[in-house]
């Protein structure tokens, strides 16, 4: 029940709300629409301003596929996104569980260490990390892209918030029922947190999917993630707009589809998480 259920909401104001929201939403989606519109224009029409792309053409896509191994890139990016998100979830889950289920010395300090990662400029740690990866022999591997991102401060913070709202008595009940903390985590906590984990996982996957800075450093020998594929159509000599937009469209497509399918859950889980 919200205040806006109350009696006497004038119709005009509601229309005003729709108007403002409509304009804002349009401003938000228009670039996305334009991206796709441009990607399906005929090569000669790339600069056309008509809102509806006509005639439709798949030439740009064909071009993109011809010049880059787009499918391979999508696959690689998918692998990175999935494993990175799963890894981050696992690490964050364990950490958040520790923070919520026990009180222990150094707790606050450790927690601040996580928050602190937000303050460390990425540019400052990039080179040492690269050198370390090289020593570990992980350059040019997808693992090299994934491993350094595995500890996500955001994940830990969000899950901790979530878990803090989780009834502690359930943990105690499981203990009384003879469970170790490890099996409690998997049998009690994880199933109950499933929606939140899914929402967070998707957010993390989107972030990992869109990441290009670090992959650009680690994966030199191929356009191994799709965001880097985009770069190969940009250049001093001007951008190759058609295939660029086509690749961009393909790069966003899986995330968009995922989002459209799970939109409700993501937003709801997020909203319910009471992130404050």
């Amino acid at each position, binding site marked *: *029940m919200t205040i806006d259920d109350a009696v006497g909401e004038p119709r005009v104001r509601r229309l005003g709300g729709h108007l403002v929201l409509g304009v804002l*939403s*349009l*401003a938000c989606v228009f*670039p996305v629409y334009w991206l796709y519109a441009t990607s399906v224009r005929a090569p000669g029409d790339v600069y056309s301003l008509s809102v509806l792309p006509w005639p439709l053409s798949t030439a740009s896509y064909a071009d993109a596929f011809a010049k880059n191994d787009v499918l391979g890139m999508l696959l690689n990016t998918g692998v990175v996104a999935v494993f990175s998100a799963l890894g981050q979830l696992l690490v964050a889950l364990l950490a958040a569980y520790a923070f919520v289920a026990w009180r222990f010395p150094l707790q606050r300090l450790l927690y601040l260490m996580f928050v602190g990662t937000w*303050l460390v400029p990425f*540019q400052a740690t990039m080179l040492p990390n690269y050198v370390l990866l090289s020593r570990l022999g992980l350059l040019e591997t997808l693992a090299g892209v994934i491993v350094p991102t595995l500890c996500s401060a955001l994940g*830990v913070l969000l899950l901790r918030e979530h878990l803090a709202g989780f009834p502690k008595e359930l943990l105690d009940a499981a203990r009384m029922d003879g469970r170790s903390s490890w099996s409690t985590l998997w049998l009690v906590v994880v199933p109950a947190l499933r929606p939140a984990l899914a929402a967070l996982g998707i957010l993390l996957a989107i972030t990992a999917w869109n990441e290009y800075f670090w992959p650009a450093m680690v994966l030199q020998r191929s356009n191994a993630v799709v965001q880097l594929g985009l770069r190969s159509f940009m250049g001093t000599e001007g951008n190759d707009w058609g295939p660029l*937009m086509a690749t961009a469209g393909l790069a966003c497509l899986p995330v968009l589809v995922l989002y459209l399918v799970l939109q409700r859950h993501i937003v709801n889980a997020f909203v319910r998480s009471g*992130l404050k």
Partner: protein
Amino acid sequence: MVSGTFVEVAPPLRAREAGVVPASRESWWTRARRIAPPYLYLTPAVVLLVVWTYQPLAQTFVLSLHSWNLVPGTPMEEVGIANYERLLGTPELGRSVWRTVVVILGMLPFTVVIPVLVALLTRRVRGRAQGVYRALVFAPMLVAPVAGAAVWQWLLDPSAGAVNRVLGTDVNWLNTTGTAQLSIIVITGWHVAGFAVLVVTAGLTGINPDYAAAAQVDGASRSQVTRWITLPLLSPTLAFLVLMTVLLSAQWTFPLIDTLTQGGPVGSTTNIYYLLWEYGFRHHDAGLAAAAGVLFFAGFIVVAALLTRLAERLSHHDD
């Protein structure tokens, strides 16, 4: 006649007062088993954190006290705080700090004002439309920064771009000192506003609707309810958003700057992170870059501490 006295009923036995304190010795093994679990669960995260964030940060700190061109074999020269002096002596630093402040201020409308507006308005519309608007506003978040940059580069093109053609202007948005920063801010704002809307919506959902209902019954008009009740109660969320904006704005703009303006024109979009990037990766001045990294880290700690303090003072928690 009977004589007697009133006596107090004794309280139940309390042995500590009698000096008998029973104690039980715990073996080290049970003790270890009791204490260890949280640390074990934290181990993976902390190891990753140390290896990939704090250890490099420490290296950076060491590097900031040296002069070295990063080539193995060439000597690393210890120079004390010379790098810091040099850094503080460059006019670029002051300018980039100022530009960072501008970026942060410019981002606030996108991370606070618009999201609050959108979240309040979406609550007002009913049914499916609510979800649809939220979904639309969130959509840019899904577009990779590079792809977003590409589209905007197209839209902002001075001669062929949609923005100029629609507005009937002739501005080279990304290559004019006055507008480049603005463009970067708008594009970044476009990108993150959806996330902020989500955060605000979550915050609003967390506010007990009874407060607004009570205020209405108390005779407050809609705008009074918003100003006197909803916004103050939303203040922790808003504080979180402001903190996030202050700490992360410069990071968020980074990929866009790198793709769209490379810090230009004439450095007008070079904020501190881009400056750090230029020192480290274009000018190969490892010592200076490290000093800048350390300085910015320290600066942000101070800013974050101040902001949290301030936020705690100003925001009203609902509990």
